[in-house]
C-alpha cells in the first residue's frame, strides 16, 4: 500500500530540496550589505505606525472555530461516501442522525446571528 505514496514522498523531498537549495544559493552567492536604513521597517516611505502584531476582533476567531467544526463534519463524510453502497440503511440512518445533530447547531448559530458579518 505504501508504494502508492512514494510519489508524494518524492514530491516532499523535491519541494524541500528546491526550497532549501534556492534559499541557500541566494544566501551564498548574493551580496549582503545591511545598513540601518535597509534594516528598518518599511511602510510606504514613512515610519511604521504600530507593531505589526496588533490585537484584532474576536469575530475572526468565531468564524475559524465554526469552520473547524464543519471541516471535521466533512472529514467524517468521506469514509461514509466510500462505503455507502455496502452500509445499507443502517449506515444511512447513522449519518442522518449525525448530520441532524449538527444541523441543530447550524440553526442555532444562524438564528443567533453568529454568521452575520455586517
Amino acid at each position, binding site marked *: 500500500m505504501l508504494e*502508492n505514496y512514494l510519489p508524494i514522498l518524492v514530491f516532499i523531498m523535491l519541494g524541500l530540496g528546491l526550497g532549501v537549495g534556492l534559499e541557500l544559493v541566494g544566501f551564498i552567492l548574493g551580496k549582503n550589505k545591511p545598513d540601518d536604513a535597509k534594516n528598518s521597517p518599511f511602510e510606504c516611505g514613512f515610519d511604521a505606525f504600530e507593531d505589526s502584531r496588533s490585537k484584532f476582533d474576536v469575530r475572526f*476567531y468565531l468564524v475559524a*472555530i465554526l469552520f*473547524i467544526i464543519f*471541516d471535521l*463534519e466533512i472529514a*467524517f463524510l*468521506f469514509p461514509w461516501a466510500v462505503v455507502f453502497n455496502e452500509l445499507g440503511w443502517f449506515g444511512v440512518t447513522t449519518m442522518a442522525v449525525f448530520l441532524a445533530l449538527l444541523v441543530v447547531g447550524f440553526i442555532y448559530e444562524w438564528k443567533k446571528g453568529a454568521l452575520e458579518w455586517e
Partner: protein
Amino acid sequence: MELTFQQLVFYGFSTLLLLSALMVILSRNSVKAVMFLVLCFVATSGLWMLLQAEFLAVALVLVYVGAVMVLFLFVVMMLDIDIAARRHGFTKLLPLALLVAIAFLFILHWLVGDNHFGLEQMEAPSDHDASYSNIRELGKMLYTDYFYPFELAAVILLVAMVAAISLTFRGKRSRKSQDIDKQVRVTKADRLRVIKMESSSSSQQTDSKSDEESNENKDKEQDK
C-alpha cells in the same frame, strides 16, 4: 544493522518531528512556534502513513494543518504577548517546572511505554497490497460497529459550536447598513402618508377636528 527504506523514512520523519517539537518550545516568536507546530503535524502525518493509516494521515493534514492551526494562529495573534513580562519569574518557577516535567515524563513512559504499547502488545501493521483501501475499512467499522461513539462525536461537535458562540459572540451589531431586499420590497404605504388638512372655511369645525384626531392616531401607528 541494515536499514530498510521504510525505516529510513521513519527515522527521517521522527527526526523532523522531534526537532520541530523542540523548536515549538524554544522559539521566542510565538507565531514561529505555531509554524513549527504545523511542521510537527506534517511529520506526524508521515509517521501515520507508515503505520498504513492513510485516511488518518490525510485527515491530520486536512483538519489539523488546514483548520486547527489557523485557529492557533488567531489565538496567538489575538493575545498581546509581552516577552519581557513572560520571562519575569522564570528562575523562580524553574524547580517547579522541572518537577512537573519529570513527573509528566514518567507518567507518559508508564502510559505509552513498552508495557502497554510495546511490540509484544501491538504488532507492527502488516504490509497491505496496493489495492487495499484503509478508508474503506474505516468506513465499514465506523458507521456500523462504532455508530454510538460516532454519534457522540456529533454531540461533542454540537457542544463545541454552542460553547464557541456563547463564549465569543457579543451580539448583533446595530450598524446602519443598506438592506437592498428591504429597499426593493418597499410599498407606497411605507413611504407616503396622506394627511387631511383643515380647509380654509371654518364651517365644518367638528368634522375637521375628528379628522385631525384620526390623523394623529395614524401618526402614532406609523411611529410604531
